[in-house]
C-alpha cells in the first residue's frame, strides 16, 4: 500500500533525475533570495551553476543550527512574509529557538509526506488516529494532524499531557493508531496499569513513535505492553517536522527518507567528509522542494547510516537506520564514545529491567566516572542483598563487555527517574570541562 505510488516507487535513475532538477532550482532560489547563502557560496567559490550532478552537492558548505540562530528569526527565509502561512520554532533549550516558516505549498507538501508516512506505517482511511504529539510551536502535533487529514483518517487532536484523559479517550473513542514519543507511550501504559487498566485491551493497531532516539529493544517492550506494531518515524522542525523518514511496516528495517523532497548524506561529524553507504555518521539533509526556508546541507547532528538496497515494501527511497543518538548527545567517557541509546539497548536486554535509566557523568580527580541509575521493580527485587548486588554487577559487566566502558550501577526506587511527556532526559553531565 502506498499513498503516492508513482513517486514512492520511482525507479532510482528517474528519482535521481528529479532530485537533480529540484536541487538546481532550490540553489538558484536560495542564492538569489537569501543573503546568507550568497555569502557562504561565494566564500566557498561555488555557485548554483557549479552543481551539475548530485555528487557536486559536496562542493557546497554546510548549514548548521548556529547559522539558523544567527539569522534569528527570519534571516534564512527564502520567501517574502506575504507567502509565509505558518511559523514553527524548535525548543530553545540553549539560547534562542530556531524558527521555520512554511508557504502554503510547503504545508501541502508536508501533509502529503506525512500521509505517505502513515500509509507506510500501516495506517489507512477509516483509522482513528490518536495524536498525542504536542500541538503548538513544536511541529509534531500539527504535522501529524495535517497528514492524518490528508490520508482521510479521523484524527483526534489530543496533544500531550493529561494522561488519564488520553487513556479514557483511547478507550471510549476506539483509537486505532497512536502517535506520540516512545517514552510517553510507555508512560501511559504504566499509568493505565496503575489504575488497573491493561493497555493491550485497546483497539490500537499501530503506534508511530518519534521525536527522540529509541532502541530496537524498546520497540519490543512497547509492542509487548501496548499490543501494537511500533513504527519509528523521523523528522526535525528545521527540515520540515515529522515525516521526513519512516519505517515501512513490511520490513521495519530502516526508515525510508522521502528522497523526491530531501537529499540525505552521511558525513564524518569531525572531518565533514562524506561517508560510504552503510557507514555510521552524521545525517546531513538538503531540502529540494521547500520554499519558505530551504536548507542546504543541513547538519542534523543525528547519527545514523544509509542504505540504497531495495526494500521488500517496493519503495525505492533510501533507508536510514534507527537514530543511534545525536552527535551532540554523544558522551566521551575516558575516551570511549558512548550513546545513551546503546546503554538503553543493553538494559532492556536484561530480564526484568525497564528502559528507564539515567546516566550521571562526573569527573573525579581528572577521571570520568559513569553512574547508571536503574529502577528496581518487583520483578528484579529480592529480599536478599546478594541477589541485588549480583544484578548490579551483571549490568556493569554487560556494559563493560559491549561498550568497553566501566560504570557503576546504582539501583533506585521505582518511578524515581523522571518520565517525560516530551523528550526524555537521559544524561546528567556534571563534568566541568
Amino acid at each position, binding site marked *: 500500500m502506498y499513498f503516492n505510488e508513482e513517486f514512492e516507487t520511482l525507479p532510482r535513475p528517474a528519482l535521481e533525475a528529479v532530485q537533480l532538477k529540484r536541487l538546481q532550482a532550490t540553489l538558484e532560489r536560495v542564492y538569489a533570495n537569501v543573503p546568507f547563502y550568497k555569502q557562504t557560496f561565494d566564500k566557498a567559490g561555488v555557485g548554483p551553476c557549479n552543481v551539475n550532478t548530485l555528487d557536486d552537492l559536496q562542493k557546497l558548505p554546510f548549514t548548521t543550527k548556529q547559522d539558523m540562530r544567527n539569522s534569528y528569526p527570519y534571516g534564512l527565509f527564502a520567501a517574502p512574509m506575504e507567502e509565509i502561512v505558518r511559523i514553527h520554532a524548535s525548543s530553545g533549550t540553549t539560547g534562542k529557538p530556531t524558527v521555520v516558516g512554511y508557504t502554503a505549498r510547503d504545508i501541502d507538501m508536508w501533509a502529503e509526506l506525512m500521509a505517505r508516512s502513515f500509509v507506510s506505517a500501516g495506517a489507512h482511511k477509516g483509522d482513528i488516529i490518536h495524536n498525542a504529539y504536542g500541538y503548538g510551536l513544536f511541529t509534531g502535533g500539527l504535522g501529524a494532524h495535517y497528514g492524518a487529514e490528508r490520508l482521510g483518517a479521523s484524527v483526534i487532536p489530543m496533544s500531550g499531557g493529561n494522561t488519564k484523559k488520553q487513556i479514557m479517550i483511547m478507550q471510549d473513542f476506539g483509537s486505532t493508531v497512536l502517535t506520540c514519543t516512545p517514552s510517553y507511550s510507555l508512560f501511559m501504559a504504566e499509568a493505565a496499569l496503575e489504575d488497573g487498566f491493561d493497555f493491550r485491551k485497546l483497539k490500537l493497531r499501530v503506534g508511530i513513535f518519534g521525536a527522540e532516539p529509541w532502541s530496537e529493544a524498546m520497540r519490543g517492550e512497547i509492542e509487548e505492553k501496548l499490543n501494537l506494531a511500533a513504527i519509528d518515524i523521523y523528522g526535525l522542525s528545521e527540515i520540515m517536522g515529522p515525516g521526513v523518514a519512516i519505517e515501512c511496516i513490511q520490513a521495519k528495517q530502516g526508515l525510508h527518507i522521502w528522497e523526491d523532497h530531501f537529499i540525505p548524506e552521511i558525513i564524518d561529524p569531525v572531518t565533514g567528509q562524506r561517508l560510504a553507504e552503510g557507514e555510521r555518521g552524521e545525517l546531513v539533509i538538503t531540502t529540494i522542494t521547500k520554499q519558505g526556508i530551504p536548507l542546504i546541507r543541513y547538519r542534523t547532528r543525528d547519527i545514523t547510516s544509509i542504505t540504497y538496497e531495495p526494500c521488500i515494501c517496493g519503495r525505492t527511497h533510501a533507508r536510514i537506520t534507527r537514530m543511534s543518538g545525536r552527535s551532540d548527545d554523544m558522551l566521551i567517557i575516558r575516551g570511549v564514545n558512548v550513546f545513551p541509546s546503546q546503554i538503553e539497548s543493553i538494559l532492556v536486554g536484561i530480564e526484568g529491567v525497564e528502559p528507564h535509566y539515567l546516566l550521571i557523568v562526573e569527573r573525579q580527580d581528572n577521571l570520568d566516572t559513569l553512574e547508571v541509575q536503574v529502577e528496581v521493580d518487583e520483578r528484579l*527485587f529480592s*529480599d536478599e542483598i546478594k541477589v*541485588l548486588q549480583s544484578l548490579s554487577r551483571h549490568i556493569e559487566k554487560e556494559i563493560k563487555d559491549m561498550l568497553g566502558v566501566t560504570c557503576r550501577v546504582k*539501583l*533506585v526506587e*521505582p518511578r524515581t527517574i523522571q518520565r517525560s511527556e516530551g523528550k526524555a532526559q537521559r544524561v546528567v553531565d556534571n563534568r566541568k570541562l
Partner: protein
Amino acid sequence: MKVEQISIFIENKSGRLAEITQILGEAGINIRALSLADTSDFGILRLIVDNVEKAKTVLKERGFTVNKTEVVAVEVPDSPGGLSTILQTLDAGQINVEYMYAFVERCGGNAVIIFRFDETDKAISVLKAKNFSILKGERLYEI
C-alpha cells in the same frame, strides 16, 4: 509452618524509613519484628506485620517495591546456648541460612528467631525432627 515476611526496597535517602513506618501506622498495621540490611546505595527492610496483604497494598500504592517471602520462626528458650543448638542442628542437616534476626516474646520469655533458608521445606523437617518449636504465622502475627 511458614511465616510471611514482606521486604521493601529502600534507597539510601533520609526519611525513607520514617515514611514507611508512618504509612503502616496510618493504615493501622502493627510491626511484629524487623530487620534492615543495607549497602552503601540501598537497603532492604524486612518486616513481620499483623496484616501482610494490607501492608503490601498500602506500600505499593505509595510507590514502594514490595515483595513477599516465606520465612520460618523458631522459638527458643531465652537462655545461653539457645540459638547455638538450633544452628548446630541446621548445620548437621546441611541447611544454609540466608539471613536471620531475632526478637523476644513479650510474655512467654522465649526468644523467636526468624530464619530465611534457601530450602525452606527441608529446614522445617530437620527442625521438627529435633522437636524445635516452630511458630505458625497466625500465632506470630498476634504476638
